[in-house]
């Protein structure tokens, strides 16, 4: 069973930590969240060997994240399935759902809709009879983006490797595909000598390197030795983090809040890293949307360990 609070905690940490990462490359597919008007973040990801895609979405108005309530919701539709996206934590404004897709080329539509009964479908009582209907929020309903999922991705290196130095290279290789951009999102779990641990996400833009079939990260791109809590906060990579924690099913792990991360005194004994690499294609923003992104992606995850001497 999922634990929305823990996912929310991870996302909260992610908000602080999931910055541009260490590669220094610009994200070419994600526009900034606009200070005025509506912005959206829509992403559909198909993990390696999966038949169900994860759809994640968020919507902003005047740069403020907007929870969808009272009959408003995000809907994901493929040619074979549909799913109402759920907020993992009430009022968080982050929405996630899982739906079957016919294959990598199956288009998925993500949209904000209004249906007071469908939105309450998880409740046990007759929602068609016991209903207070406040009507839709016209500022938030009616946006739609269509997404095609790129070719499947398989990482053929780094799996179960062990690295001893932050300057070590993590050589990632894959079969070249049709992606416009490659990114990675690492969920890092570090432990010190006394057994204390903390977990954080770390987003990196690898760039337009799909055709090359390889990219070299440094361990330091994922596990910096500086005070990483000072990383620049950004909204646009939270959707990626949302998808990452969903496909890794990190819901039941003991996540910690920012206040519990003893960054200043934490001496790493070892870190386990689940590195998810994404092959991404960007799509046009919905009409009348001022910022954000619409992305289709496939992904593969490798686990490795950082174990300094």
């Amino acid at each position, binding site marked *: 069973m999922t634990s929305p609070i823990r996912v929310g905690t991870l996302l909260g940490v992610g908000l602080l930590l999931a910055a541009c990462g260490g590669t220094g490359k610009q994200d070419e597919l994600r526009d900034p969240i606009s200070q005025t008007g509506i912005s959206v973040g829509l992403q559909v990801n198909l993990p390696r060997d999966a038949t169900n895609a994860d759809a994640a979405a968020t919507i902003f108005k005047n740069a403020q994240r907007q*929870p969808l*309530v*009272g009959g408003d919701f995000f809907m994901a539709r493929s040619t074979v399935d549909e799913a109402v996206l759920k907020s993992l934590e009430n*009022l968080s404004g982050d929405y996630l759902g899982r739906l079957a897709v016919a294959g990598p080329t199956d288009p998925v539509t993500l949209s904000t809709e209004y249906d007071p*009964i469908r939105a309450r479908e998880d*409740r*046990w009582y007759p929602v*068609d009879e016991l209903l207070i209907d406040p009507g839709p929020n016209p500022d938030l309903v009616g946006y739609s983006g269509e997404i095609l999922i790129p070719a499947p991705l398989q990482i053929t290196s780094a799996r179960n490797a062990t690295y001893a130095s932050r300057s070590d290279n993590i050589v990632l290789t894959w079969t070249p595909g049709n992606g416009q951009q490659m990114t990675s999102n690492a969920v890092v779990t570090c432990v010190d000598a006394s057994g204390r641990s903390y977990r954080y996400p770390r987003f990196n833009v690898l760039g337009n390197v799909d055709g090359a079939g390889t990219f070299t990260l440094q361990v330091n791109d994922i596990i910096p030795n500086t005070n990483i809590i000072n990383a620049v906060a950004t909204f646009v990579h939270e959707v990626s983090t949302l998808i990452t924690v969903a496909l890794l099913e990190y819901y039941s792990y003991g996540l910690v809040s920012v206040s519990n991360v003893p960054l200043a005194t934490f001496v790493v004994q070892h870190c386990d890293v689940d590195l998810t690499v994404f092959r991404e294609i960007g799509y046009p923003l919905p009409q009348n949307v001022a910022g954000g992104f619409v992305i289709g992606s496939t992904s593969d995850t490798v686990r490795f360990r950082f174990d300094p001497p």
Partner: protein
Amino acid sequence: MKRFIAVFPLALLSITPLQAQPAGTGVGAHLAYVANDAGSGSDLDANLRGELFGQLRFNPHLAFELGYAHSTSTEEEGADNQGTYSIDITSDDFYGGVRLQSQAIGAWSLYGRGGLLYYRSEIDFAEEFFGLKPGGEIEEIEEGIGYYLEAGVSYAAAPELLLDLGFTYRVRQDYFEDSRRPFDLEEMGVTAGLVWLLR
């Protein structure tokens, strides 16, 4: 109730054998503490139910009963990403059925009750949306039929007085039967009371 309180300590001390009551009438009252279940996902809280009934006794072991029961409010409050809601159900039942009474052993006997009921429930529903949209409340009246079962032990505190203690199960069927998600409301719990046997 005062009479019940006055008689009960004496009843505990006495070993009055149950007198086989011939045909006649009787009146009774029960008070139950019941858990509520409206199906998968529901989380209605427990409540009290009071009953008043009369009986027509055909012989010492069989009586026909007519009664009225009032169930106090059972409530559920919930929240999800769409908002918060509360459901409050209060019910009145009119029922009829039989009461079976076993042969007494000393002052003790077993009893069972069962029959059909007509219910009228008042359902107060309220919903809020975290202050982002205007909330509100509505009231619905649901009526229908159901049934009840009860079994327990009786203690003859006096030749005319039975003290009952038992398990009770009651179902009110088909709330919102024309909706997409009708439900039955089940009550299950313990009940205690008395029956005053009249000649």
